[in-house]
């Protein structure tokens, strides 16, 4: 595979040349205020947005309740393997759930096609858009998209009010230097390509469940 790329210098030279002429200034001198409404009550807002995104959000008080919630979700799924992010927190959680299901841990590789669900942690929750912020360290890339159901175990203290904050935090802690991939997920997979009718569960999960432990 050739590694030479002579066009690189040509293109850069053309860009530099072209930019020698400054662009005309923006004529509109209006001063603009804030773009988005400030998020007053993040947890409430997060729940509202989850509902609008057709996500399932369950609030739990502690790890016992979280295990129960997770058990409930698993019971509603067809029999089969689940893929779980290999993290001490999730090891404890799965242990508490005591499911009979076959578990494939992320340390073994990515999720298989026969997975009924994937279970991961999140890096953050975003109230403004009802989103979960995940990255490769959360069980890899396929973990949030391969199986028909994706279950996220998160904590209320991970909640940030808006996208800008979440992204600034990601920049500050070098998230994309430590992870080859990250994703802000705001719902289950869907498409409106047929007559603009919304259909859930296109190529990704049909269900996205977020268990938010409020705890102390």
């Amino acid at each position, binding site marked *: 595979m050739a590694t030479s790329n002579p066009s690189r210098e040509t293109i850069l030279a053309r860009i530099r040349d072209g930019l020698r002429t400054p662009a005309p200034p923006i004529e509109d001198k209006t001063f603009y205020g804030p*773009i988005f409404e400030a998020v007053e009550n993040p947890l409430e807002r997060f729940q509202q947005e989850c509902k609008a995104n057709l996500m399932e959000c369950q609030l739990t008080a502690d790890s016992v309740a979280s295990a129960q919630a997770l058990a409930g979700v698993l019971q509603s799924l067809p029999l089969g393997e689940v893929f779980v992010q290999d993290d001490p927190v999730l090891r404890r959680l799965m242990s508490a759930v005591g499911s009979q299901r076959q578990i494939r841990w992320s340390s073994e590789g990515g999720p298989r096609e026969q997975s009924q669900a994937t279970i991961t942690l999140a890096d953050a929750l975003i109230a403004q858009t009802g989103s979960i912020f995940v990255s490769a360290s959360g069980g890899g890339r396929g973990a949030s998209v391969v199986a028909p159901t994706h279950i996220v175990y998160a904590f209320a203290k991970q909640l940030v009010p808006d996208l800008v904050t979440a992204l600034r935090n990601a*920049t500050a802690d070098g998230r994309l230097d430590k992870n080859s991939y990250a994703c802000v997920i705001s719902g289950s997979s869907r498409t409106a390509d047929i007559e603009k009718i919304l259909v859930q569960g296109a190529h990704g999960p049909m269900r996205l469940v977020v268990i938010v432990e409020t705890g102390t």
Partner: protein
Amino acid sequence: MSTTVPTPNTTPAGETPSALTAAQKFLRDAATKSADLVHREIIRKNMDSYDAAHNRGRARIKDWEAARRKCQEIKREAINNLDKYLLQFEQKVLARGGHVFWAATGDEACAYIKDLAVSRGVKTVVKSKSMVTEEMHLAPVLEAAGMRVWETDLGEFIVQLRNEAPYHIVTPAMHLDRNQIRDLFREKLGEDIPDADPQKLVALARRKLREAFFAAEMGISGANFLVADAGAVAISTNEGNGRLSTSLPRIHVAVTGIEKVIPRLEDLGTLWPVLATSGTGQPITTYSTLVGGPKRADEADGPEEFHVVLLDNGRSGLLANAEEREVLHCIRCGACLNICPVYRNIGGHTYNTTYPGPIGSVLTPHLRGSEFQHLSYASSLCGACTSVCPVNINLHHHLLHNRRDFTKAGGAKTSGERRQFKLWRTAMLHPRLYELGGWMMRRSLRLLYGMGLAGTALDPMRDWSRKRTPVPLPSQSFRARWRKELSKNDQGRTAGGNK
């Protein structure tokens, strides 16, 4: 299954396609589509649905004008420092073991990707939506090299099966209804869904494409943004096909125009909601993905190789034109297509370009030459496009500039019209000549129309009178009436009421 530039209308008997210029073909296709009332109704329904969603989406944003201004500023900063931000982006990607290839032309980009695929033994390719790969005509190149290419975005998958170009940059199969899609799947995929239920049609597409996702050695994606400070490609999707294409195959190639750069990761905090609102009316797309490199050693899965192909293909030329530079700010949301009354009547295929609608009409003459200049004229300059553009591109004014530059460049195409306007100018500079000319025009047309010749080959206004009642032809101009009866101010009337 290749995506080729379409010839959707059949050629009339006896006429070879190459005999028509792009402009003539456009006029012919526009006439056909404009008269197609079924098409008009489908598009109207789609656009009404978009309008409602879009307005709901805008209402979610506290200050929409502030959002547009912010996005304008972000893109302006990026484009006016393009080399700096591209280099910053490249450096970070390379540091993570990714590859960056700069392609001056579409052919160069295709050659790089093909050579890469061949050298890695790629047999199956899954593609998520990328208008740039349409611009480059990538799929035929890979297919000619013996690879199977699957479009995985549902709309793109559908038009690929029909061997058609995408109808719209965001909703590629907007022009089809569920029955047509059901018939298509029955013919090409061998499975029938008698009730054409959209849910079942989607499930069928999912089943078929699943095999491709897991078998493919290479996934090709586009990029909505290139984030310079993070060194990451940002991809906004809803279906999850973009996620699977960039997670399962062992090679990920992201193809993008050089103008997609933005300075900072946090800029996405505004651009993501604005793109989604303008594109579909959503607050944000379901998957807002960031990819910065191949899988790391400690990661559970992911591609072993990551390549970013940066395509110029005329963009640096547009950059050099300071007056037109802001056209490169476009974030490809599709809002201008959706609102354009011309697009609504002639549809996406009539443009016969990768990018249709207002942005396509502004951009294409610059990227592909004066052969497409007719697109700058195929507009009433209503300005609706400019009013919805989320990055405040003054689209309809750029159409005027295109027209000005085209006539300045001269040539046979404009010299006849220039002569007409020189005559017109002479008349306009001499009021008596203007008055005489006007009177003669009215007189002769009244004679002609009196003989029932309106709309016939003898009528100089036949392009008006064929489909409209003829222009009114008063016996007296206003100035004649002014002179005769109106010039004295009649102070007898009382003033009207107040607010």
